């Protein structure tokens, strides 16, 4: 099919034909077309089916406010549903499909819904799918899910990448129409840092769509020359194809720049879109205005469009919406469309104006009257007109341009809950209330509807913003332009109409609004939610006003009394992909690698995510077929001889200053003031409410220098808490904090041969014998011939053990050295699983026990809470409720039958009596198989547990029907006297 509706001129390039496909059929458009304009050029009016009734639909607008012409763009993994054909920039090879049809677009099987429209009115879902209740899950929901929604997802991963970025400027100008361009020129020539953003691929706004002259140039040419000048200024960033999606607090704006959407596939390495976060000091909103339709019977047929859209297609895209065009208007602007199209040789069937005093024309017929109905199954063929004298007239037309007046585009002014105010002269809402900080509104967006008004207010807004910022604004010479006020008679819908569409995307009619009023929905917010008016992806940019006007009339109120619903970000639908940016898949969050990572990878270690850290979980060896085999081996080898584990991930905070000891006394519930230099102590940190927060060790390296460790998961919150105590509670303490977690590579070396192994690493001048370097000792030492290191004699496993730290860059060499010199002891690397097994065997509490609900008493450390000093949490841990009889105490648990498991999460019940929550005695927190004992063991909390050792209880997990018999034992399964770690 050739481009039967293509005119000449416009801002399209006839020398650059572009081939594309719609519903499998090939067409040709031109460079500069949108998909919508190219389809219209080819005589295609039918572009999709409506949401509820599956009525044939075409394009209503020529911009991003489009409710109707939504298509599935591209194929396969790049398929993108609900894409507005009016904003899709045509490219060679484009493919698109119509949506929401069962069968071909012309014979949609679900069009049957239109026949049942009486049932599908407002509140249909609420009323219809109530009973029988059992039908919901099996029958109603699947059917609705199948029928609902418009486009479909490819269900494949998006192959493109999306970026994020950050921009800073003095003045952000939203919209590059006459007001925005005048503002940008003023601010740009004045030297301010300016960003000019426009969602369109061609900047200029309505200047591209009108035939007005600016000075001696066409509007489009003037816009071109201004944009060229702006692009040449180093202080101006011109951003076409960029939608400002939201105005956030304090001058922060979100913007989506479409880098590659106009290409078949993005260039190598280039993102599809970029989400910009713009920080601006001042903003000029020059977003223009949006024409609104008039509701009349069957006003949704393909070919019925906004009058301004028909004009845009003719002037900018050189496309006649049809060879025969009629206009229905309540204002002067509608007549402009007739004039422009007539001038291009398109036949004007008639202009129907609701005003008796409508301007007349020499060129075509102007009728006083109303359009009362239309005909044409898949596209408009006739419009029925009732003339002022009551007589009827049928107009033959393939396109009907409707103009109900213009609404200033107040969307962005509402993002901080600004409420628009009513303007009688325009019969429209204009920006009002509190605008986003630093924003002023210019041009049509503020109700200045003429080109001259837009130019002047745009320039003035920029000057005011610059003055506000203390910058000197240059005055620019603005071209002579059109300055004719537009007369309008408010007119929202044709009396007597019922199936007259307000919201074409959600299929909401005049009848629905009346019904909702009849059923008692009086608030505008209720109307919106009950009828779904304005709740579609277009947020009702073309439909809300009509609904409000009808509601006002029914309620006997004025439109401003009824009020408006509120626009919210994003301005237009925004893909989840661009919000995620590069942060997806493996890059969803950062990875932290331990100093031994490279070596562990070489060993074939299995890694586990611990927070952002990747830690070796176990080190499988040849022949081992299950993880348990590896873990059991690692545990046994460590307890038999010596094992090594990377413990760098524990948080480390350097605490220095003359008050360092006093500071630790405050943050730990146990005493630290008298800890000797060269000694380490276990410390328990409480929250102010007495619940355990974290635990670790503090090593005193000097009188005024401690190194504090935290658990891996809590490193950051504990550091933050310590800074809170330092800055907010104890501001005059001489104490300085800094994290050193990553500065040191730290290895635990555990087992009876750990000292013997270390002696091969530690330089000879350091004596690490038990007498000189006993349990809990610490020191700055040197290793391997002079490398600075720190040595701590601490033990998580319960064995004779040390932790040795070297500067991180040497961590890789250190693990290799440990493995090399430890070969004679059969040194074994162990991972987090073996670490966990050994700490459970020893009865050491960890994250499962310090779970945000447990106190020091629960953990069996009640006596550690010093009564002689005030520390965080000490006061509230004295509360009665935390010290009552029947309180939980940490215990060990073993199965009576050694073959039985003891699953974590299971609950303890008395040997006899009911099994229910009321009789719950406690629960298992940590469990594992102990290769040393040959059966499962566990730690848990039990009511009065410290007095119940030896008791046989039932352990149950009602969720999965598990039950077994267990014995309560000491939590210290291994070496309860602690002889090994002091050896």
């Amino acid at each position, binding site marked *: 099919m050739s481009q039967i509706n293509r005119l000449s001129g416009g801002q399209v390039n006839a020398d650059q034909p572009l081939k594309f496909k719609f519903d499998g059929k090939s067409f040709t458009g031109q460079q500069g077309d949108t998909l919508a304009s190219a389809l219209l050029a080819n005589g295609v009016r039918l572009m999709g089916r409506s949401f509820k009734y599956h009525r044939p639909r075409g394009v209503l607008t020529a911009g991003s406010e489009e409710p109707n012409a939504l298509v599935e763009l591209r194929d396969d993994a790049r398929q993108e549903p609900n894409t507005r054909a009016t904003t899709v920039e045509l490219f060679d090879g484009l493919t698109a499909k119509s949506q929401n049809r069962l069968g071909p677009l012309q014979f949609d099987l679900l069009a049957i819904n239109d026949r049942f429209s009486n049932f599908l009115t407002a509140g249909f879902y609420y009323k219809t799918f109530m009973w029988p209740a059992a039908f919901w899950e099996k029958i109603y929901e699947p059917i609705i899910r199948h029928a609902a929604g418009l486009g479909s997802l490819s269900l494949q991963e998006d192959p493109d990448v999306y970026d994020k970025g950050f921009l800073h400027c003095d003045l952000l100008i939203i919209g590059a129409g006459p007001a925005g361009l005048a503002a940008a020129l003023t601010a740009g020539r004045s030297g301010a840092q300016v960003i000019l953003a426009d969602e369109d691929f061609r900047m200029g706004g309505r200047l591209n769509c009108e035939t007005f002259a600016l000075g001696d140039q066409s509007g489009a040419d003037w816009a071109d020359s201004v944009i060229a000048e702006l692009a040449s200024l180093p202080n101006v960033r011109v951003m076409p194809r960029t939608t400002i999606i939201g105005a956030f607090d304090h001058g922060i704006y979100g913007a989506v720049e479409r880098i590659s959407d106009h290409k078949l596939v993005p260039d190598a390495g280039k993102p599809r879109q970029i989400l910009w976060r713009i920080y601006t000091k001042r903003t000029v909103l020059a977003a223009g205005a949006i024409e609104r339709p008039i509701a009349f019977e069957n006003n949704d047929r393909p070919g019925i469009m906004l009058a301004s859209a028909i004009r845009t297609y003719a002037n900018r895209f050189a496309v006649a919406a049809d060879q025969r065009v009629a206009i229905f208007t309540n204002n002067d602007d509608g007549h402009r469309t007739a004039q422009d199209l007539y001038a291009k040789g398109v036949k004007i069937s008639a202009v129907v104006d609701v005003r008796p005093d409508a301007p007349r024309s020499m060129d075509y017929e102007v009728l006083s009257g109303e359009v009362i109905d239309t005909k044409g199954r898949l596209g408009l063929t006739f419009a029925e007109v009732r003339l002022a004298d009551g007589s009827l007239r049928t107009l033959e037309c393939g396109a009907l341009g409707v103009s109900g007046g213009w609404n200033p585009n107040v969307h962005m002014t509402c993002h901080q809950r600004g409420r628009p105010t009513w303007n009688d002269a325009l019969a429209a809402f204009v920006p009002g209330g509190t605008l986003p900080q630093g924003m002023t509104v210019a041009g049509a967006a503020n109700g200045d509807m003429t080109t001259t008004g837009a130019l002047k207010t745009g320039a003035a807004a920029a000057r005011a913003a610059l003055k506000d910022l203390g910058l000197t604004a240059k005055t620019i010479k603005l071209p002579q332009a059109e300055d004719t006020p537009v007369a309008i008679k408010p007119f929202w819908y044709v009396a007597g109409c019922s199936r007259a569409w307000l919201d074409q995307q959600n299929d909401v009619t005049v009848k629905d609004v009346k019904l909702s009023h009849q059923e008692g929905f009086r608030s505008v917010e209720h109307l919106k939610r009950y009828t779904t008016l304005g709740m579609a992806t277009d947020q009702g940019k073309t439909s809300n006003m009509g609904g409000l006007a009808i509601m006002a009339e029914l309620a006997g109120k004025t439109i401003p009394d009824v009020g408006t619903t509120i626009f919210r970000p994003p301005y237009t639908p925004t893909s989840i992909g661009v919000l995620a940016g590069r942060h997806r898949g493996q890059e969803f969050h950062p990875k932290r690698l331990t100093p031994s990572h490279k070596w562990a990878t070489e060993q074939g270690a299995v890694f586990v995510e611990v927070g952002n850290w990747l830690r070796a979980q176990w080190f499988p060896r040849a022949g081992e077929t299950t993880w348990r085999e590896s873990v059991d081996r690692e545990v046994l080898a460590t307890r038999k001889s010596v094992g090594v584990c990377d413990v760098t991930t524990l948080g480390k905070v350097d605490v220095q200053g003359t008050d360092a000891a006093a500071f630790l006394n405050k943050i730990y519930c146990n005493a630290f003031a008298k800890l000797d230099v060269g000694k380490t102590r276990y410390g328990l940190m409480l929250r102010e409410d007495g619940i355990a927060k974290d635990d670790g060790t503090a090593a005193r390296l000097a009188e005024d220098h401690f190194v504090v460790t935290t658990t891996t998961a809590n490193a950051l919150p504990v550091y933050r808490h310590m800074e809170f105590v330092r800055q907010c509670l104890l501001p005059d303490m001489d104490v300085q904090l800094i994290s*050193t977690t990553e500065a040191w590579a730290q290895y635990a070396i555990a087992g009876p041969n750990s000292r013997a192994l270390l002696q091969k690493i530690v330089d000879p001048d350091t004596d690490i014998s038990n007498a000189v370097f006993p349990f809990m000792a610490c020191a700055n030492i040197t290793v391997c011939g002079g490398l600075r290191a720190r040595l701590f004699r601490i033990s998580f496993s319960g064995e004779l053990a040390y932790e040795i730290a070297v500067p991180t860059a040497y961590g*890789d060499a250190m693990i290799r050295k440990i493995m090399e010199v430890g070969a004679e002891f059969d040194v074994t690397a162990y991972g987090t699983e073996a670490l966990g097994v050994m700490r459970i065997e020893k009865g050491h509490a960890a994250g499962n026990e310090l779970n945000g609900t447990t106190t020091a008493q629960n953990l069996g450390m009640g006596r550690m809470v010093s009564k002689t000093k005030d520390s965080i949490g000490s006061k509230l841990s004295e509360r009665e409720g935390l010290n009552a009889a029947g309180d939980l105490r940490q215990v060990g648990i073993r199965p009576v039958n050694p073959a039985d498991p003891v699953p974590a999460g299971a609950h303890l019940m008395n040997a006899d009596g009911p099994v229910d929550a009321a009789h719950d005695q406690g629960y298992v927190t940590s469990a594992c198989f102990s290769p040393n004992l040959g059966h499962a063991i566990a730690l848990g909390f039990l009511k009065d547990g410290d007095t119940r050792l030896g008791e046989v209880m039932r352990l149950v997990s009602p969720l999965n029907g598990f039950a077994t018999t267990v014995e309560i034992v000491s939590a210290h399964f291994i070496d309860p006297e602690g002889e090994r770690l002091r050896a």
Partner: protein
Amino acid sequence: MHNLKSITALGGTESRIDAFTHITIAENDGVALASVAARLGKEKKCHTILKKLLGAVPEAGRAQLHDPEAGFWMGPDQWMIGAPRATHELLADDLKGRFGDTASVTEQTGAWVCFDITGPAMPDFCERLCAVPIRQMVAGDARRTVIHHLGCFVIRRETDDHIRILGARASTQTLHHALIITAKAMA
């Protein structure tokens, strides 16, 4: 002299360089770092020593680009001091000697990875990476910021097209990945 060989943050024996058309990303393994925090009540003495060391006391948000020791402000009364590793392997000990009881000194060399970014596309590159207002920053401006969810320092160096980024060493691979994909998107 000890017999352990260090590796770079990216895991190599040599610093890695990735060169693109308009941007070069160079791992810099040669920086020794230590933090200095003034002791309460000893701030003036600490400042005097700092001034002697660097030529000036770096103000909030500023670095003193100086040889061989340089430094930037990290927080109230706290600075990061850097120097060539080749000559200052024991920087923290050296600084502790200079500052005595006027400041708390903590070794930081191993905690950070250092990347030098150079090339004409550096400002565009920076805008994609983080929220620092790179075009308003001048030589010696130093900001802590977030890159790819990672806390980093960005320091604008003397030459116009050069920034230095310090990031947490354990996350070097993630940071490097972020730098590389951004550079590719610029090319």
